[in-house]
């Protein structure tokens, strides 16, 4: 049964006042390696059908993987029973109407192990090169493709293909560990030899080791580290919780200045290379999502503009509560500073004494009032002296709030595509500049190397 057919048949079976159906076809391929050898791998296909039944504002959602044609009546009935037994939903609203995607009839897009056909040999060459250099490579490559079909009783027929790829490459020798990563849509745009060379360069920086105590240091946060901090800020930027006084944005509402610099943090479903669903696709309502918004068009949205909070993530329901525009979350995140930002190398060159990080790890919220986060530096903290990297230092545990940090940033670099190290299981589409922070709080020393 084609996904479009599943959507139509489920809608035909619906007896409630409204109904939405999401059919998803997903495929994936992955390779994982450790110590210059492959460890695990896999390919997979899955199919999921989600029925969202609405009866006079009450909602029932049932989602089944692998549901076939003979299971559709039971699936629709189960969702309708949930809806009929539920109280009216707080976020109930008329469903968006009408739009039909031009590619609605297209077959689902599929990936398989062949997506690595040029990458895998290149990786094998890196294994050999690492072996020869006395280092070991670890990492992971994954490609996923999901085709989603959204149909509704109000006539919506929308479709989106979402490719998501990521590569993480970690090199270790007896003294040091270095990391790099990349997000990709199809694995054809990766410079594997270049990434390998960068890792060897970084392992070279580790030949001189120094121990530094905990304290506040001038720190260059590379794009990956910035993305992990900004993604957490973005996830916390729900308008409803802020409206209820429960987040850092309760005390930093829209219009508040976060940074003296002209920072822009935004999302755009059409950002080149980071394209994502251009309409709302919610399987269930939650704090920051509403199934009633399914199908609403998404556009470029500034979350921070000119250093000020410009918008929080809003459903139609929360927009009604707060009197602000409807600004649902979008699945990518981009930060830009003033035009003409420097490269990371140029920022290093103009640093008298500071730390250059590689990435952040194990980030967790300590205090929601200030959005204080804790976490670790990982896979290379480098000492910069008089514009040059002079050695590698120990790792640190940091305690920092991304909100407070933005007020202290003194320089933004050039925005570039990056892979969030901490959050890439959930969020891969990010472009960030490096940031210079004059007093990053390295709270304690970590013995991890």
């Amino acid at each position, binding site marked *: 049964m084609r996904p479009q057919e599943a959507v139509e048949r489920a809608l035909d079976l619906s007896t409630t006042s409204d109904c939405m159906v999401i059919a998803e076809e997903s495929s994936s391929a992955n390779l994982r390696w450790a110590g210059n050898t492959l460890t695990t791998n896999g390919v997979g296909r899955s199919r999921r059908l989600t029925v969202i039944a609405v009866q006079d504002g009450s909602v029932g959602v049932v989602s089944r993987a692998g549901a076939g044609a003979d299971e559709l009546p039971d699936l629709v009935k189960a969702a309708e029973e949930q809806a009929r037994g539920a109280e009216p939903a707080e976020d109930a609203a008329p469903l968006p109407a009408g739009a039909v995607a031009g590619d609605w009839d297209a077959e689902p897009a599929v990936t398989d192990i062949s997506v690595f056909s040029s990458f895998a040999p290149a990786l094998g060459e890196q294994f050999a090169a690492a072996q020869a250099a006395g280092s070991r490579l670890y990492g992971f490559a994954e490609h996923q493709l999901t085709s989603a079909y959204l149909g509704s009783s109000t006539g919506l027929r929308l479709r989106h293909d979402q490719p998501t790829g990521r590569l993480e490459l970690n090199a270790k020798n007896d003294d040091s560990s270095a990391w790099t990563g990349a997000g990709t849509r199809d694995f054809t745009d990766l410079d594997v030899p270049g990434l390998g060379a960068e890792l060897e360069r970084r392992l070279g920086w580790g030949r001189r080791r120094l121990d530094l105590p905990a304290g506040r240091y001038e720190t260059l946060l590379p794009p990956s580290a910035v993305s992990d901090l900004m993604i957490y800020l973005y996830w916390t930027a729900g308008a409803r919780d802020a409206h209820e006084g429960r987040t850092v944005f309760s005390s930093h509402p829209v219009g508040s200045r976060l940074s003296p610099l002209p920072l822009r943090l935004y999302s755009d479903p059409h950002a080149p290379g980071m394209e994502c669903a251009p309409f709302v696709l919610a399987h269930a309502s939650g704090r920051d999502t509403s199934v009633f918004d399914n199908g609403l068009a998404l556009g470029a949205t500034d979350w921070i503009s000119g250093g000020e909070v410009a918008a929080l993530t809003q459903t139609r329901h929360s927009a009604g509560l707060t009197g602000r525009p409807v600004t649902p979350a979008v699945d990518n995140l981009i930060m830009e500073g003033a035009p003409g930002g420097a490269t990371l190398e140029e920022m290093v060159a103009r640093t008298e004494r500071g730390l250059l990080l590689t990435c952040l790890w*194990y980030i967790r919220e300590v205090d929601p009032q200030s959005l204080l986060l804790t976490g670790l530096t990982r896979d290379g903290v480098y000492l910069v002296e008089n514009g040059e990297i002079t050695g590698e230092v120990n790792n640190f545990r940091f305690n920092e709030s991304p909100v407070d940090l933005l007020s202290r940033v003194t320089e933004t670099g050039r925005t570039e595509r990056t892979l969030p190290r901490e959050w890439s299981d959930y969020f891969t589409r990010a472009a960030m500049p490096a940031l210079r922070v004059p007093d990053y709080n390295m709270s304690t020393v970590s013995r991890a190397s």
Partner: protein
Amino acid sequence: MHEIDPAFTALPLRVLADAALSRARELGASHADFRLERIRSQSLRLKDGALETSLETDDIGLSVRVVKDGTWGFASGIDLTPEAAAGLAGQAVAVARVAGAINREPVELAPEPAHGEQTWVSSYEIDPFAIPSAEKVELLGEWSRRLLAAGVDHVDASLLQVKENKFFASLEGTVTTQQRVRVHPQLTAVRVAQGAFDTMRTLAPPAGRGWEYLTGTGWDFDAELAEIPSLLAEKLAAPSVEAGSYDVVVDPSNLWLTIHESIGHATELDRALGYEAAYAGTSFATPDKLGRLQYGSPVLNVTGDRTAEHGLATIGFDDEGVATQEWDIVTGGLFTGYQTDRRIAHLTGRERSNGCAFADSPASTPIQRMANVSIRPAPGGPSTEELISRVENGVYIVGDKSWSIDMQRHNFQFTGQRFFRIRGGRLDGQLRDVAYQATTTDFWNSMEAVGGPQTYVLGGAFNCGKGQPGQVAPVSHGCPSALFRGVNILNALKEAGK
């Protein structure tokens, strides 16, 4: 014991397994295993007593894992036909061929006896999926309204329920059909006052139990809900902690997570050998330290098991067909044992895996996952109050909240739900803005005493993350209350530069 869900046993389990395993054998696989799983879950979330999220998922799928010429191959799918199952075996072998070109370490598995046909069902009374959703929502709503009526500003209530059916068959001749049920009810109360806010969450841990857990078996929700409003009001008005070194008494509701992060993950042998190095990390507890490292003080005794009743990692047979077991990890403070799967056990010369392979879905490949890792209470040991009475100047820490630990499991930092000042052996009101930070072995070696069995609680989580592609696993950790000397307490406001 309940019967395995008839809807699951009615599936053509053996037919599909035979098709897949036969095909794998024909294609020359030296090892092949087949899994067919159905995982039902339901998530209910209420905000201030009104239903916000209701999502029921039902995932069925199958997978084949092979070893072909010393390389793993894995493929998963959703079509429950013999042709599709055989096709997956073919795909898994094809993946192994592609991967074999860059595999330098032949895969071999530690032996495990063939267990024949086995059935296992977890210990629960009432299947939560037999209860109408409206009844569940009504109970969560009633609990929420109790808190709202007592003066809290907002209440988030949630209930996660999972029913997991696993069918496994291997070329070795083990065929298992298993069923597990678990539930996690949780309420968080919020108070907002004069620009400040704070929260307090229930301490009830997730449990390998059924609907009975919400109606009085295994936890007293009425008692817990009754005390939250006043405790939260006191917390919001409490003084900020002064950072420094304190003696601390840690309640099981907090300590389980510290065990999880600093002992559970640190004693996974795949981590210690570097197989998680690029992601979850490695471990300071490397094999050369086994039998030598003083992990903690002599009162620390830690076991691993997948057998504890109501444990979230508990099951009869793991996802490699290994019969589950209990074993020592730390004995009298000395590091004495690891968690293993079959490949890692063979690599390190062990005669047998201790049964820690787990895949979180039919689409996931089994990897080494955590057992229930628990601290033994002291027979005839002290109560929590007696432990507190031994502290002149300290903090009593209750409930888990924030957690973070480095990639070798040295440096950790945790917060909690409630922090009580201890003065002269007595509790003296709550504190705010507390976090505790330590290095793993320093912390466990500062453990002066553990409580008796009367303080023991089985805590845990549904969502332990590991592996790439990421997988989540449910796991429990039992422990008594415990007393630690000289622990570094941070002030979160000061850390934020306030």
